[in-house]
């Protein structure tokens, strides 16, 4: 299909607008994080005086570093648990016929759709009673619960794409069902697993609602919640610079995560399994 100059211009404009809308707020925050306190409110896009003071400030206290460790730890643990469980469940959903399968799929969709805000209050009560409040587990449990439906849905789509004959071949080659899963099916579904892992991790990383409601100290408070507790150096000073610096810092792992795994998310890994 030949594209005319007019079409190119139309699409180009649309793309530019979309990119600008997404990138300007991010650049603004980056810019603010490099401004010093005196020029913070000068309303210029590029900082007149560059400073790393804001970054030094947030790393000077343990408040932010603790939160960062909590965020990474809770995010990774939740992701690993959710992906492992979801891959097994998704395999069952994609391959096996068992009673209550449609109920299971329906329930998981229901959980994914459930408004999180309505769960916060009961969860708060339950976790306080169980003594889980303000621990890593307090956040890992709801994160896994919300990550699972997402994982089951994405992964079962991937498993369905894998030819069933591969599994039969593995069985004929002497593999137990578990070996067939771990040695043949799971490696082939790796792109799906990485996609799921990224989605679940981003969900955990970005969550503010559970983090603010189910924690109270730096023991388990994650970065999004911790940023809310930032204070200026004096009562009359806004912590804008610190907040922006912290925001930039927590964006970095996500970018790294996506860039790293993007190389794995290549289509066509299954090509060649069967005659094309």
């Amino acid at each position: 299909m030949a594209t005319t100059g007019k079409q190119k211009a139309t699409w180009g404009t649309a793309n530019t607008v979309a990119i600008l809308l997404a990138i300007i707020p991010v650049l603004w925050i980056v810019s603010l994080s490099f401004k010093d306190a005196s020029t913070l409110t000068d309303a210029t896009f590029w900082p007149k005086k560059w400073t790393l003071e804001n970054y030094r400030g947030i790393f000077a206290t343990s408040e932010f570093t603790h939160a960062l460790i909590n965020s990474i730890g809770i995010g990774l643990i939740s992701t690993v648990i959710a992906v492992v469980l979801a891959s097994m469940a998704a395999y069952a959903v994609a391959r096996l016929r068992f009673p209550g399968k449609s109920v299971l799929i329906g329930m998981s969709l229901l959980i994914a759709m459930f408004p999180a805000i309505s769960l916060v209050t009961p969860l708060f009560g339950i976790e306080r009673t169980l003594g889980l409040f303000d621990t890593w587990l307090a956040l890992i449990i709801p994160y896994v619960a919300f990550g699972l439906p997402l994982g089951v849905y994405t992964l079962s789509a991937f498993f369905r794409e894998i030819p069933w004959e591969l599994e039969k071949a593995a069985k004929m080659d002497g593999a137990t069902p578990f070996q067939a899963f771990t040695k043949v099916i799971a490696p082939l579904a790796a792109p799906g697993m990485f996609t799921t892992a990224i989605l679940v991790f981003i969900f955990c990383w970005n969550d503010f609602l559970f983090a603010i409601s189910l924690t109270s100290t730096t023991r388990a408070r994650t970065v999004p919640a911790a940023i809310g507790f930032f204070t200026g150096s004096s009562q009359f000073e806004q912590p804008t610079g610190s907040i922006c610096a912290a925001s930039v810092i927590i964006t970095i792992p996500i970018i790294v995560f996506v860039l790293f795994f993007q190389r794995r998310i290549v289509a066509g890994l299954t090509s060649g399994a069967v005659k094309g």
Partner: protein
Amino acid sequence: MAEIVLNDVTKRFPDGALAVDRVSMEIADGEFMILVGPSGCGKSTTLNMIAGLEDISSGELRIGGTVVNNMAPKDRDIAMVFQSYALYPHMTVRENMAFALKLAKVPQQTIDQKVEEAARVLDLTQHLQRKPANLSGGQRQRVAMGRCIVRDPKAFLMDEPLSNLDAKLRVQMRTEVARLQRRLGTTMVYVTHDQTEAMTLGDRVAVMRSGLLQQLDSPAELYAHPVNLFVAGFIGSPAMNFLPAKLEEGCLRTAIGDIPVTDQLRQNLESKKVEREVLLGVRPENFEDAALVSPENKPRGVTFRASVDVVESMGSDIFAYFTLGTEQTVTSAELDELAKDSGRAEVGGGDGLQVVARLDPASTVKEGTDSELWADARSIHVFDPASGENLALAR
């Protein structure tokens, strides 16, 4: 290596569909057995039951003297080639072939030795480090066979292994499969829907139709003495021609003339109490251009005139297609099924009866002209249209 014995093996799916109905056969050690039939006849299900990929609803399956009904595939020690090859795309050719041995915890040195040996036999040595995606269809097919060979299994199972190859490669691989099996001497069960493959490869061929075993015989025997209409129509290419006939005054009245009834046929007709309507089966090569038939042979057949519609010259043979006008119609469920399977039902025969004859290349028949043709009465088959049974057989 081992023999495989099926004793009244039946498969009934949970939805009640009967896929395989009391199939019994004994596959001898080292035999090349073919399961052939149209799609949905239960041949692949039978193979999957031998493999252990499908449960056996009832009956008994023995491999090498052991009942394996409830044994997992991995404990049956048999290897299988799938229609799609099912190569592991994330593994190299070497890893693909070594996979089964690795699972069996064979020492690495033995694995390397066996894989290299198999690769040499199959001409895959220079491809060992490549992934399946980078191989051609024929190479993938050979890797799939290599995966079986390295294990020295009791039996090979092949599920339409050549149907994904193009026509030329298929013929080439067919010879290769036959040579490999002779060389290894391993029992082989081979499923195909292609009667040419069945005829050329098998020591014996089992023809199946809607879950039932129709006939189990050597290819030559199937061709010469089909037990029923279905086998007669399925085996042979081009397919056997079927002509309606009426029994009258000791001979068979047909559109190509009257054919005398043999003693064997008369006996069978009497014992079976068949109606007067029967179906004649004439193979294309049993026709000949009347001008080329020697005078002493002529009385052994019937000579008739027909208008030839199409002449296809193949060099070694001439195929002449003609239509016989006839008021007689005999229908048979088996023939309908064959027609559906070969796609003839969709094409539509038009009025009259389409017949194909295979003539000597010296024949001078021309399209659109009336020609004199001859049919050999000695090799004509007579079928009961109701049961499909071959009435000319002495059994």
